């Protein structure tokens, strides 16, 4: 696994917490690597309604300075829920590498 800034190294039993838990934060788990397709928003059609932000199961949607959605691709799994829920159908799921 890629070691991002959230990574806490465990070398031995002494470093383990009492109970199994994520060390520090779930942000260590970069689920972007699971993705086949990624979301791209058509800003001309987007009404900035925020429904994609609301529905994203991985909380990867934030707003840019003008209020348009931005997707954090380190964690976006490419599930397409945002594209499905978008009332203007202005989010396209594009195949990785294209």
């Amino acid at each position, binding site marked *: 696994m890629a070691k991002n800034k959230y990574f806490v190294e465990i070398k031995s*039993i002494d470093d*383990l917490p*009492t*109970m*199994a*838990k*994520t060390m*520090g*934060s*779930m942000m260590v788990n970069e689920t972007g690597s699971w993705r086949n397709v990624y979301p791209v928003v058509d800003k001309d059609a987007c009404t900035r309604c925020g429904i994609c932000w609301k529905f994203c199961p991985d909380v990867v949607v934030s707003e840019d300075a003008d209020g348009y959605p931005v997707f954090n691709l380190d964690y976006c799994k490419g599930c397409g829920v945002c594209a499905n829920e978008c009332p203007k159908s202005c989010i396209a799921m594009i195949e990785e590498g294209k």
Partner: protein
Amino acid sequence: MKKVLTGNHAVSYGAMIARAEVVAAYPITPQTQIVEKLSEMCADGDLDARFIKVESEHSAMAACIGASASGARAFTATSSQGLALMDEMLHWASHARLPIVMANINRSLGPPWTIWTDQNDTISRRDTGWIQFYCESNQEVIDTMIMAFKIAEQVKLPAFLTLDSFYISHTSEAEELPNQKLVDEYLSKYQAETDLDPTKGSPAYGSLTTDQWYFELQIKMQRAMEQAYDIILKENDLFEKMFGRSYLPVEGYRTDDADYVVFVSGTIASTIKDAIDRARENGIKVGSAKVRLFRPFPKAMIREMAKGRKRLGVIDRNISYGSEGAFFTEIKGALYSQSEHPEIHGFIAGLGGRDVTVDSAYEMIRLVVETSPEKDINWQGAKL
């Protein structure tokens, strides 16, 4: 202050003076009075706790797990089939290292449907990772309630205590109600290691762990159990200093000069003392040893108690089908590594609430003193 109370109400008062903050329980005979009293205490404001009504024992333990993880002192009580239904959550509580305390009335498992006592409900929960205390009197019940929270919270493992169905649960005796101020001094507020407050971070608890670290987490549980043994001794010392009563994991009765010792747990440990006295009057050098702690198993004290004896006996009010009595197995296991192995009798008595009288206890003592063991199970008081 001394008061005449049933064993069940001793549990309720124990939870009250230990200041349980969340009580989640589902009623079952013979535990119902515990829950009734606790709900009254909550309603009357005598106990500042949240009483959570649930639809099953599984939910009761699930509610306690949530409560304990969020930092509340959590308590529940159950019996027999209820404990069995709770099983999955019992494992969850210990693996999550949550110091929940539970009172279980030892009631036989059905079918056939039964409400009378034996220990198979808790013995069959042997490997759930819970600290297990077996009580002999109402006083021991109320005192163990207080100690159990303190021990569990230090080692971060859940603990349960057991009471024999009817022989303790519905039996009234005079018992000393520990002074609240003294209990508050002994048992301070529970500080959870886990914290579900999102402002203090956002870890996920108990999520997927591969073979990379699961093994070590298990070792940590075992280490906590080993540590619990020392803490139980330490806490008992302190309890004795503050409250004047002591409960060792293995407690001898007239064993100092005994050639023969009979190990026993639960209410039979009380009854057998009258039989030991009778044997002593007949000139037999015999004593009994109550095993109060089943997990962690007090191996060192068992070895010490067995040392230099001519013959031993173990009375089990339980059976591991296809093997023998559970305490019998454990005690033999503890002695195997020792250089001397006294002969040892295994008795199974009192299943399904079959009465174990002073006479039947005396008969077991007589067999230990007069005979060599021929088989692993000696059915006592059964219609063979």
